[in-house]
């Protein structure tokens, strides 16, 4: 099952064969209204007359398992080959199918490096099984390529460029059939896949194994519907539960971590730079979002302050100097504050050779604080771990130095600056370089949820974990284990893993016990399939890690610091009773199965 059931339930497989043609075309589509499917025109050979087709099938995979298919009855096709868009009107569809929401305007102002998800049906699979896809919205100019033009892609189309590890040049053929699959950011469709081609620089590192795809924007769908007077129904009215990938905090779903919140707000009220760290999925972003929302209330001097969040994953330059990162940082700050003439200011920083560039960065921030910082400026720097590894050698060291420096200046205008930082891992464990956060930042460590917090999170999904489970749990010798016991036995108190289970149960109105049964019956096809797939990729890339984990399964140790970093960041291992061990039952079961 997909970890996004709302996505896979809305996606369809299309098989279309024109009369006189020897082979059918396989493609994908998605529901945009209770009775309307959107896809590419070329998926239907640019035809709209139903009589021209010898075969035209629409298959839904709406059930909890992939195998249950539903056919819809097609009543009409409208199509615009120039924009490579088609709408298929269908009746007799299962009522529980929920259309996807469309988000217009993305092509005008794309956010490069946004992560997208898609769900297509590769034609090469005779069973027509679906394939979840994910990747990144890419800057076409940066890729130094021109948009594909021509009859297949649609002459009038403005493309959105996508890259994904799954669009590998070698596997490009497999992806045939994904035309028409939705491109989703968050929970909204911003376009649909039009064409997948090998990456033009495929022979050149670092993109040797990557390909690109072009998506058409949703505006084509909206224009075609408008032109044909087809009404698209309003979005879903059912209760929408938050998915773990939804980073935007809905305060109604937040589970408090009282001690950590108190500490963070205490430190920030004393203007100490505050570093939040913990494994992936542990809830750092949500925690930071909550703290941000509480700043004004708890630190009156910062009521109405400007909060600028800089995500280091967006700084992806692997070449260049450490200084360039700081110029990027200043540029982002100025841009967020709508300061005019940014290129000129940054240019001065770059060209002023008389003074130290890092000192100039501080001067620039100081001038911003003097002008803009009357209400306070909160700088939130996230995913700092991304600056370790491939980036210039001195970058992390210089960053921690600057954090200490800025945090140590208590006089105006520096007293108008707060710094909130986020990193995935114990700072110690970043052993790639001998760089530690200097003692300029106080640290808040986020751990797994406690049992009470797990139950609280479940309540947000309208689930009651005190119910007894029908499964037997080893640790519960009286045989009266609750759902909470069963869940903790499987995924501990890991917020993201818990949320996946809760989301699946709540969104599909299913019994949590059944969801967990499915997980245990078939780990690879469960709600945790992508989580486990990522683990598998990591282990395939580094056989030593696999050996280390197998040793841990046998109760042996022998982890190097570097291995510990990677596995702890990914929340695969933890220390318990002075011994490193596999963190959750989920991973233990999966690794045992793999090693067997």
């Amino acid at each position, binding site marked *: 099952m997909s970890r996004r059931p709302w996505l896979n339930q809305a996606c369809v497989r299309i098989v279309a064969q024109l009369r006189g043609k020897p082979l059918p075309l396989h493609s994908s589509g998605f529901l945009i209204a209770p009775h309307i499917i959107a896809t590419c025109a070329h998926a239907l050979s640019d035809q709209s007359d139903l009589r021209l087709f010898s075969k035209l099938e629409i298959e839904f995979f709406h059930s909890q398992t992939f195998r249950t298919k539903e056919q819809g009855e097609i009543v009409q096709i409208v199509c615009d080959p120039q924009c490579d868009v088609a709408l298929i009107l269908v009746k007799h569809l299962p009522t529980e199918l929920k259309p996807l929401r469309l988000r217009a305007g993305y092509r005008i102002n794309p956010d490069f490096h946004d992560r997208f998800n898609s769900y297509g049906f590769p034609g090469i699979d005779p069973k027509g099984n679906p394939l979840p896809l994910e990747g990144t919205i890419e800057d076409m100019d940066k890729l130094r390529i021109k948009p594909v033009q021509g009859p297949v892609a649609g002459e009038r189309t403005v493309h959105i460029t996508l890259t994904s590890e799954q669009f590998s040049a070698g596997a490009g053929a497999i992806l045939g059939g994904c035309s028409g699959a939705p491109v989703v950011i968050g929970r909204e469709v911003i376009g649909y896949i039009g064409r997948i081609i090998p990456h033009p620089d495929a022979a050149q590192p670092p993109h040797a194994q990557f390909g690109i795809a072009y998506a058409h924007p949703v505006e084509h769908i909206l224009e075609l519907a408008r032109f044909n007077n087809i009404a698209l129904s309003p979005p879903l009215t059912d209760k929408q539960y938050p998915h773990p990938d939804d980073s935007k905090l809905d305060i109604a779903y937040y589970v408090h971590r009282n001690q950590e919140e108190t500490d963070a707000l205490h430190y920030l009220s004393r203007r100490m730079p505050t570093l939040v760290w913990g494994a992936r999925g542990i809830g750092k972003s949500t925690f930071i979002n909550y703290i941000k929302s509480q700043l004004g209330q708890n630190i009156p001097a910062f009521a109405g302050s400007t909060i600028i969040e800089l995500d280091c994953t967006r700084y992806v330059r692997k070449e260049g100097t450490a200084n360039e990162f700081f110029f990027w940082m200043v540029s982002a700050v100025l841009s967020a504050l709508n300061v005019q003439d940014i290129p000129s200011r940054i240019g001065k920083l770059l060209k002023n050779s008389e*003074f130290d560039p*890092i000192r100039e960065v*501080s001067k620039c921030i100081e001038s911003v604080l003097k002008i803009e910082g009357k209400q306070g400026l909160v700088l939130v720097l996230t995913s700092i771990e991304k600056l370790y590894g491939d980036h210039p050698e001195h970058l992390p060291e210089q960053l921690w130095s*600057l954090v200490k420096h800025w945090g140590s200046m*208590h006089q105006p205008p520096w007293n108008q600056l707060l710094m909130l930082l986020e990193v995935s891992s114990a700072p110690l464990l970043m052993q790639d370089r001998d760089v530690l*956060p200097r*003692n300029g*930042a106080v*640290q808040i460590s986020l751990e797994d949820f406690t049992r009470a917090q797990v139950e609280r999170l479940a309540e947000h999904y309208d689930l009651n974990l005190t119910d007894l489970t029908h499964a037997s749990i080893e640790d519960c010798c009286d045989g009266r284990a609750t759902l909470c016991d069963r869940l903790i036995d499987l995924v501990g108190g890991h917020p993201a893993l818990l949320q996946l289970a809760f989301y699946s149960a709540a969104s599909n109105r299913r019994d949590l016990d059944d969801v967990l049964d499915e997980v245990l019956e078939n780990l690879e096809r469960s709600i945790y399939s992508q989580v486990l797939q990522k683990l598998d990729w990591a282990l395939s890339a580094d056989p030593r890690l696999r050996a280390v984990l197998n040793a841990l399964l046998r109760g042996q140790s022998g982890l190097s*610091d570097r291995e510990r970093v990677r596995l702890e960041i990914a929340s695969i291992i933890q220390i318990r009773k002075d011994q490193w061990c596999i963190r959750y039952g989920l991973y233990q079961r999966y690794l045992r199965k793999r090693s067997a």
Partner: protein
Amino acid sequence: MTGPLTFQIAGTIGPNAIYIERATDAELTAMLREAPLCHIVGPPQIGKSSMALHLKESLSQTAGCGIYLDLNGYGTTTSPEGSLYNSLIFDSLERLTDEEPTLPPGDTRERLMWWLQQLDKIAEERQVVLIIDEFGLLVSRSVILLEAIAAHLTARPAGTPRASVLLLGIFNIPQLLGEPGKAEMIRAFFGAGGLSRRIELVDFKREELSPFAQALPPSAAYADALLDRIAYWTSGHPYMTQMLCLQAAKWHAPEADAATQIDRLVNQLFLVPNSIGDPCLAWAHKLLCPSEGGVTGQARRLRYKTLLKQGELLDDPKDPYITDLILAGLVVRRRVQDQTRLVVRNRIIMNVFDDGWFLRNAPADEARSETR
């Protein structure tokens, strides 16, 4: 001062933080009147920067002037040397005079000489102390500043008023003595009888901790008992002491006797096996287990292990690995009669970096040979 008192557990001392004067504060003030150059070398989080800022504040109250240059704010590893020193010269003079300084023409060495002369000129009217924090970042790159200071002191007639320089940081002097091109200058400054006077920054004594009691609930007697137990564990280590105080300050009512409460807290903050996420212990862990491996880590571990077994060790100021242990914060010097001895810094360190730690972290062959 506004707002409740607080403890400083990171960075330099901020508003409302409690500053505790140590005997070293007075020693430093006196020393800077006599000597043109002093240095404080030590591990992170023992209060070097806070002491320097306190000194700066004290100087301003006596019509003197302290200029604090924090090298964390400069591109010491990334920027060209010329532009780095231009910035230091400009920033220091800007804080001393109302006018925007104009840097003279010439190369970096000439500008540095000019800078020191300007500072001396101002020192004719009032006491000037130039404080350079994180000096280790400069000296690991070159000794050009030391050369300029040496030349300046030689050229300056004895007895004339002059600015003093205080260098703070984490730098391994015996190791620098082994670096070609630096050894001579390092010896001239930091060797026995060198130009710079070493100030030993020692941890808080128990009796010095009393000001912290004012921020600890719920009663003076209980706060005193808390501080007794905190001192038992930390031996006055500034960061560890304040970290424990900060957490203890959250207790509204005692749940148990002070010792039990603090023992629990120590266990929770420092002694659990993954507590090496604590920055202070992380630093020590890293120096004992450098990622590059090899003989350096082994030599450090060997000395520490010996010290752990014997309880104390005679100091050898020329041994770079012993200096590493001191800079790691694992070990402190103790004067016993006419000898300087090394001891493990406190009970927390002793409990974290114990035999079990060696078994878990030292390479397997090293751990085996130790157990044989």
